[in-house]
Protein backbone atom coordinates (compact mmCIF):
# COMPACT_ATOMS: atom_id res chain seq x y z
CA UNK A 1 0.00 0.00 0.00
CA UNK A 2 3.08 2.26 -0.01
CA UNK A 3 2.53 5.56 1.74
CA UNK A 4 -1.21 5.39 1.45
CA UNK A 5 -2.91 4.91 4.78
CA UNK A 6 -6.40 3.73 3.98
CA UNK A 7 -7.67 4.22 7.54
CA UNK A 8 -6.30 7.73 7.73
CA UNK A 9 -8.03 8.53 4.47
CA UNK A 10 -11.23 6.86 5.59
CA UNK A 11 -11.21 8.71 8.90
CA UNK A 12 -10.66 11.99 7.10
CA UNK A 13 -13.61 11.59 4.72
CA UNK A 14 -15.83 10.02 7.40
CA UNK A 15 -15.49 13.09 9.55
CA UNK A 16 -18.82 14.72 10.36
CA UNK A 17 -17.79 17.92 8.69
CA UNK A 18 -17.39 16.33 5.26
CA UNK A 19 -20.79 16.63 3.59
CA UNK A 20 -19.55 15.44 0.22
CA UNK A 21 -16.29 14.04 -1.05
CA UNK A 22 -15.85 12.64 -4.53
CA UNK A 23 -13.00 12.05 -6.89
CA UNK A 24 -13.60 10.47 -10.22
CA UNK A 25 -15.36 10.81 -13.53
CA UNK A 26 -18.19 13.34 -13.57
CA UNK A 27 -21.43 13.01 -15.47
CA UNK A 28 -24.68 14.92 -15.49
CA UNK A 29 -26.34 11.98 -13.77
CA UNK A 30 -23.81 12.00 -10.92
CA UNK A 31 -24.18 15.77 -10.54
CA UNK A 32 -27.93 15.37 -10.21
CA UNK A 33 -27.45 12.74 -7.51
CA UNK A 34 -24.94 14.88 -5.61
CA UNK A 35 -27.21 17.92 -5.84
CA UNK A 36 -30.12 15.97 -4.36
CA UNK A 37 -27.90 14.67 -1.59
CA UNK A 38 -26.66 18.19 -0.74
CA UNK A 39 -30.16 19.59 -0.64
CA UNK A 40 -31.27 16.79 1.59
CA UNK A 41 -28.36 17.25 4.00
CA UNK A 42 -28.79 21.03 4.15
CA UNK A 43 -32.56 21.27 4.20
CA UNK A 44 -32.56 22.50 7.81
CA UNK A 45 -30.40 25.44 6.81
CA UNK A 46 -32.43 26.82 3.93
CA UNK A 47 -30.74 30.10 3.14
CA UNK A 48 -27.11 28.92 3.29
CA UNK A 49 -28.08 25.49 1.98
CA UNK A 50 -29.51 26.97 -1.20
CA UNK A 51 -26.37 29.03 -1.70
CA UNK A 52 -24.14 25.98 -1.27
CA UNK A 53 -26.30 24.09 -3.76
CA UNK A 54 -26.21 26.90 -6.37
CA UNK A 55 -22.44 27.39 -6.02
CA UNK A 56 -21.80 23.67 -6.16
CA UNK A 57 -23.81 23.43 -9.40
CA UNK A 58 -21.88 26.25 -11.10
CA UNK A 59 -18.44 25.04 -10.01
CA UNK A 60 -19.14 21.38 -10.71
CA UNK A 61 -20.45 22.26 -14.18
CA UNK A 62 -17.19 24.14 -14.79
CA UNK A 63 -15.24 20.98 -13.87
CA UNK A 64 -17.53 18.93 -16.09
CA UNK A 65 -16.83 21.19 -19.07
CA UNK A 66 -13.20 22.11 -18.56
CA UNK A 67 -11.30 19.41 -16.72
CA UNK A 68 -8.40 18.25 -18.84
CA UNK A 69 -8.24 14.92 -17.11
CA UNK A 70 -10.34 12.41 -18.95
CA UNK A 71 -11.37 8.93 -17.92
CA UNK A 72 -10.06 6.82 -20.77
CA UNK A 73 -12.34 3.92 -19.99
CA UNK A 74 -15.93 4.14 -21.12
CA UNK A 75 -17.20 7.54 -22.21
CA UNK A 76 -14.16 9.78 -21.78
CA UNK A 77 -15.89 11.48 -18.86
CA UNK A 78 -14.17 14.46 -17.31
CA UNK A 79 -12.46 13.72 -13.99
CA UNK A 80 -12.63 16.03 -11.03
CA UNK A 81 -12.70 16.27 -7.27
CA UNK A 82 -15.67 17.74 -5.41
CA UNK A 83 -15.75 18.46 -1.69
CA UNK A 84 -18.25 20.20 0.55
CA UNK A 85 -17.30 20.87 4.16
CA UNK A 86 -19.26 22.09 7.13
CA UNK A 87 -16.70 24.12 9.08
CA UNK A 88 -18.82 25.40 11.92
CA UNK A 89 -19.97 28.87 11.06
CA UNK A 90 -19.59 28.33 7.33
CA UNK A 91 -19.72 25.82 4.52
CA UNK A 92 -16.96 25.43 2.00
CA UNK A 93 -17.42 24.25 -1.57
CA UNK A 94 -14.16 23.04 -3.15
CA UNK A 95 -13.53 21.70 -6.64
CA UNK A 96 -10.29 20.47 -8.12
CA UNK A 97 -9.37 19.48 -11.63
CA UNK A 98 -6.50 19.29 -14.08
CA UNK A 99 -5.95 22.17 -16.43
CA UNK A 100 -3.30 22.93 -19.04
CA UNK A 101 -0.49 25.06 -17.60
CA UNK A 102 -0.98 27.33 -20.60
CA UNK A 103 -4.52 28.19 -19.52
CA UNK A 104 -3.49 29.01 -15.93
CA UNK A 105 -2.69 32.71 -16.47
CA UNK A 106 -6.17 33.45 -17.86
CA UNK A 107 -7.89 31.37 -15.19
CA UNK A 108 -6.00 33.09 -12.39
CA UNK A 109 -6.60 36.48 -13.99
CA UNK A 110 -10.36 35.78 -14.08
CA UNK A 111 -10.43 34.80 -10.40
CA UNK A 112 -8.30 37.77 -9.36
CA UNK A 113 -10.54 40.10 -11.32
CA UNK A 114 -13.61 38.68 -9.54
CA UNK A 115 -11.88 39.14 -6.19
CA UNK A 116 -10.93 42.73 -6.95
CA UNK A 117 -14.52 43.89 -7.49
CA UNK A 118 -17.05 44.96 -4.86
CA UNK A 119 -20.60 43.61 -5.02
CA UNK A 120 -22.03 46.33 -7.26
CA UNK A 121 -19.11 46.13 -9.68
CA UNK A 122 -19.39 42.34 -9.69
CA UNK A 123 -23.10 42.55 -10.59
CA UNK A 124 -22.19 44.95 -13.36
CA UNK A 125 -19.50 42.57 -14.61
CA UNK A 126 -21.93 39.67 -14.56
CA UNK A 127 -24.41 41.68 -16.62
CA UNK A 128 -21.64 42.44 -19.10
CA UNK A 129 -20.71 38.76 -19.42
CA UNK A 130 -24.34 37.73 -19.68
CA UNK A 131 -25.15 40.22 -22.45
CA UNK A 132 -22.16 39.23 -24.54
CA UNK A 133 -22.62 36.38 -26.99
CA UNK A 134 -21.26 33.13 -25.47
CA UNK A 135 -17.56 32.80 -26.17
CA UNK A 136 -17.10 29.62 -28.22
CA UNK A 137 -15.22 26.98 -26.26
CA UNK A 138 -15.79 28.59 -22.91
CA UNK A 139 -19.53 27.87 -22.73
CA UNK A 140 -20.04 30.76 -20.37
CA UNK A 141 -16.86 30.31 -18.35
CA UNK A 142 -16.29 33.21 -16.11
CA UNK A 143 -19.95 33.94 -15.52
CA UNK A 144 -20.18 30.82 -13.34
CA UNK A 145 -17.25 32.05 -11.26
CA UNK A 146 -18.77 35.52 -10.98
CA UNK A 147 -22.09 34.02 -9.92
CA UNK A 148 -20.38 31.80 -7.33
CA UNK A 149 -18.68 34.85 -5.77
CA UNK A 150 -21.95 36.81 -5.84
CA UNK A 151 -23.99 33.99 -4.31
CA UNK A 152 -21.40 33.36 -1.59
CA UNK A 153 -20.80 37.07 -1.12
CA UNK A 154 -17.19 36.04 -0.68
CA UNK A 155 -13.87 35.78 -2.48
CA UNK A 156 -12.73 32.89 -4.61
CA UNK A 157 -9.80 30.98 -3.14
CA UNK A 158 -7.35 29.38 -5.54
CA UNK A 159 -4.59 26.86 -5.10
CA UNK A 160 -2.47 25.74 -8.02
CA UNK A 161 -0.11 22.81 -8.04
CA UNK A 162 2.07 22.55 -11.11
CA UNK A 163 2.57 18.98 -12.21
CA UNK A 164 5.27 17.52 -14.42
CA UNK A 165 4.52 17.94 -18.10
CA UNK A 166 1.83 20.17 -19.49
CA UNK A 167 -0.74 19.93 -16.69
CA UNK A 168 -1.43 21.64 -13.40
CA UNK A 169 -3.96 20.87 -10.70
CA UNK A 170 -6.33 23.74 -10.06
CA UNK A 171 -8.31 23.96 -6.83
CA UNK A 172 -11.07 26.49 -6.30
CA UNK A 173 -12.75 27.09 -2.95
CA UNK A 174 -15.71 29.27 -1.98
CA UNK A 175 -16.78 29.93 1.59
CA UNK A 176 -20.49 30.37 2.38
CA UNK A 177 -21.21 31.84 5.77
CA UNK A 178 -24.16 30.37 7.65
Amino acid sequence: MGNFNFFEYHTLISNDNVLLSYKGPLTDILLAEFSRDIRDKLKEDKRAGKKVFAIFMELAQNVLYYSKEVNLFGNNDKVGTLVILDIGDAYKVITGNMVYKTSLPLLIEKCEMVNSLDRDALREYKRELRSAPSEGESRGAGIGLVQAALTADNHLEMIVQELQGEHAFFVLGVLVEK
Partner: protein
Amino acid sequence: MENLEIKGESGVYFIPNVSLNAQTGTCEISGESYLEDTSEFYNGIINWIEQYTIEVKGALTFNFKLTYFNTSSSRSILDVLRTLKKYQDQGGGVTINWYYPEDDDSIAEEAEDYMKDTGLAINMFSFEPDED
Protein backbone atom coordinates in the same frame (compact mmCIF):
# COMPACT_ATOMS: atom_id res chain seq x y z
CA MET B 1 -52.77 29.75 -32.09
CA GLU B 2 -51.90 26.93 -29.73
CA ASN B 3 -50.89 27.22 -26.12
CA LEU B 4 -47.47 26.00 -25.01
CA GLU B 5 -47.53 23.81 -21.93
CA ILE B 6 -44.47 22.06 -20.52
CA LYS B 7 -44.74 20.08 -17.32
CA GLY B 8 -41.68 20.66 -15.17
CA GLU B 9 -39.68 17.80 -13.77
CA SER B 10 -36.65 17.22 -11.65
CA GLY B 11 -34.51 14.33 -12.85
CA VAL B 12 -30.99 14.56 -14.20
CA TYR B 13 -31.93 18.14 -15.19
CA PHE B 14 -34.45 20.54 -13.69
CA ILE B 15 -37.10 21.47 -16.22
CA PRO B 16 -39.31 24.43 -15.29
CA ASN B 17 -43.09 24.47 -15.68
CA VAL B 18 -44.06 26.51 -18.68
CA SER B 19 -47.59 27.67 -19.44
CA LEU B 20 -48.07 30.11 -22.30
CA ASN B 21 -51.73 30.89 -23.04
CA ALA B 22 -52.54 32.37 -26.45
CA GLN B 23 -56.19 33.08 -25.51
CA THR B 24 -55.57 35.07 -22.33
CA GLY B 25 -52.00 36.24 -23.02
CA THR B 26 -51.06 35.08 -19.52
CA CYS B 27 -47.79 33.20 -19.37
CA GLU B 28 -45.87 31.64 -16.52
CA ILE B 29 -42.46 30.04 -16.10
CA SER B 30 -42.00 28.50 -12.67
CA GLY B 31 -39.91 26.01 -10.73
CA GLU B 32 -36.25 25.32 -11.38
CA SER B 33 -34.19 25.71 -14.51
CA TYR B 34 -31.05 23.72 -15.20
CA LEU B 35 -31.24 22.10 -18.60
CA GLU B 36 -29.29 19.90 -20.95
CA ASP B 37 -29.77 22.27 -23.87
CA THR B 38 -30.78 25.60 -22.40
CA SER B 39 -30.96 27.62 -25.62
CA GLU B 40 -33.09 25.04 -27.37
CA PHE B 41 -35.57 25.00 -24.48
CA TYR B 42 -35.91 28.78 -24.24
CA ASN B 43 -35.92 29.24 -28.02
CA GLY B 44 -39.21 27.33 -27.96
CA ILE B 45 -40.60 30.00 -25.65
CA ILE B 46 -39.13 32.85 -27.71
CA ASN B 47 -40.60 31.40 -30.92
CA TRP B 48 -44.02 31.16 -29.25
CA ILE B 49 -43.84 34.83 -28.19
CA GLU B 50 -42.81 35.91 -31.69
CA GLN B 51 -45.66 33.94 -33.26
CA TYR B 52 -48.09 35.47 -30.74
CA THR B 53 -46.95 38.99 -31.56
CA ILE B 54 -47.59 38.34 -35.25
CA GLU B 55 -50.81 36.30 -35.08
CA VAL B 56 -52.64 37.33 -31.92
CA LYS B 57 -51.10 40.76 -31.26
CA GLY B 58 -52.75 40.90 -27.81
CA ALA B 59 -51.38 41.99 -24.46
CA LEU B 60 -48.95 39.66 -22.69
CA THR B 61 -48.51 39.14 -18.97
CA PHE B 62 -45.40 37.16 -18.11
CA ASN B 63 -45.07 35.72 -14.62
CA PHE B 64 -41.65 34.41 -13.61
CA LYS B 65 -41.76 32.32 -10.48
CA LEU B 66 -38.44 30.52 -10.42
CA THR B 67 -36.82 29.19 -7.27
CA TYR B 68 -33.50 28.24 -8.88
CA PHE B 69 -31.82 28.75 -12.23
CA ASN B 70 -28.22 28.35 -13.32
CA THR B 71 -26.22 31.03 -15.13
CA SER B 72 -26.86 29.39 -18.48
CA SER B 73 -30.63 29.71 -17.90
CA SER B 74 -30.16 33.29 -16.77
CA ARG B 75 -28.73 34.13 -20.21
CA SER B 76 -31.72 32.58 -21.91
CA ILE B 77 -34.19 34.38 -19.64
CA LEU B 78 -32.51 37.62 -20.74
CA ASP B 79 -33.24 36.63 -24.34
CA VAL B 80 -36.91 36.01 -23.46
CA LEU B 81 -37.11 39.44 -21.82
CA ARG B 82 -35.43 41.09 -24.80
CA THR B 83 -38.06 39.53 -27.06
CA LEU B 84 -40.79 40.94 -24.82
CA LYS B 85 -39.12 44.36 -24.85
CA LYS B 86 -39.06 44.31 -28.62
CA TYR B 87 -42.81 43.67 -28.64
CA GLN B 88 -43.36 46.50 -26.18
CA ASP B 89 -41.31 48.84 -28.35
CA GLN B 90 -43.57 47.95 -31.27
CA GLY B 91 -46.57 49.01 -29.21
CA GLY B 92 -47.52 45.65 -27.68
CA GLY B 93 -48.89 45.53 -24.13
CA VAL B 94 -46.36 43.78 -21.90
CA THR B 95 -46.51 43.25 -18.13
CA ILE B 96 -43.70 41.39 -16.37
CA ASN B 97 -44.16 40.06 -12.86
CA TRP B 98 -41.13 38.60 -11.12
CA TYR B 99 -41.82 36.45 -8.07
CA TYR B 100 -38.78 35.70 -5.93
CA PRO B 101 -38.57 33.31 -2.97
CA GLU B 102 -38.74 35.42 0.18
CA ASP B 103 -35.49 33.95 1.52
CA ASP B 104 -33.54 34.43 -1.70
CA ASP B 105 -32.08 37.90 -2.27
CA SER B 106 -30.11 36.83 -5.31
CA ILE B 107 -33.24 36.00 -7.33
CA ALA B 108 -34.64 39.43 -6.41
CA GLU B 109 -31.35 41.02 -7.52
CA GLU B 110 -31.65 39.24 -10.84
CA ALA B 111 -34.86 41.16 -11.59
CA GLU B 112 -33.13 44.47 -10.85
CA ASP B 113 -30.29 43.48 -13.16
CA TYR B 114 -32.73 42.43 -15.90
CA MET B 115 -34.45 45.83 -15.66
CA LYS B 116 -31.09 47.53 -16.22
CA ASP B 117 -30.25 45.21 -19.11
CA THR B 118 -33.54 45.49 -20.98
CA GLY B 119 -35.11 48.79 -19.91
CA LEU B 120 -38.30 46.87 -19.08
CA ALA B 121 -40.30 47.67 -15.97
CA ILE B 122 -40.52 44.51 -13.87
CA ASN B 123 -42.96 44.22 -10.96
CA MET B 124 -41.38 42.37 -8.05
CA PHE B 125 -43.20 40.23 -5.49
CA SER B 126 -41.85 37.90 -2.84
CA PHE B 127 -43.49 34.54 -2.28
CA GLU B 128 -43.13 31.59 0.03
CA PRO B 129 -42.02 28.59 -2.02
CA ASP B 130 -43.77 25.25 -1.47
CA GLU B 131 -41.90 22.79 0.67
CA ASP B 132 -40.98 19.63 -1.21
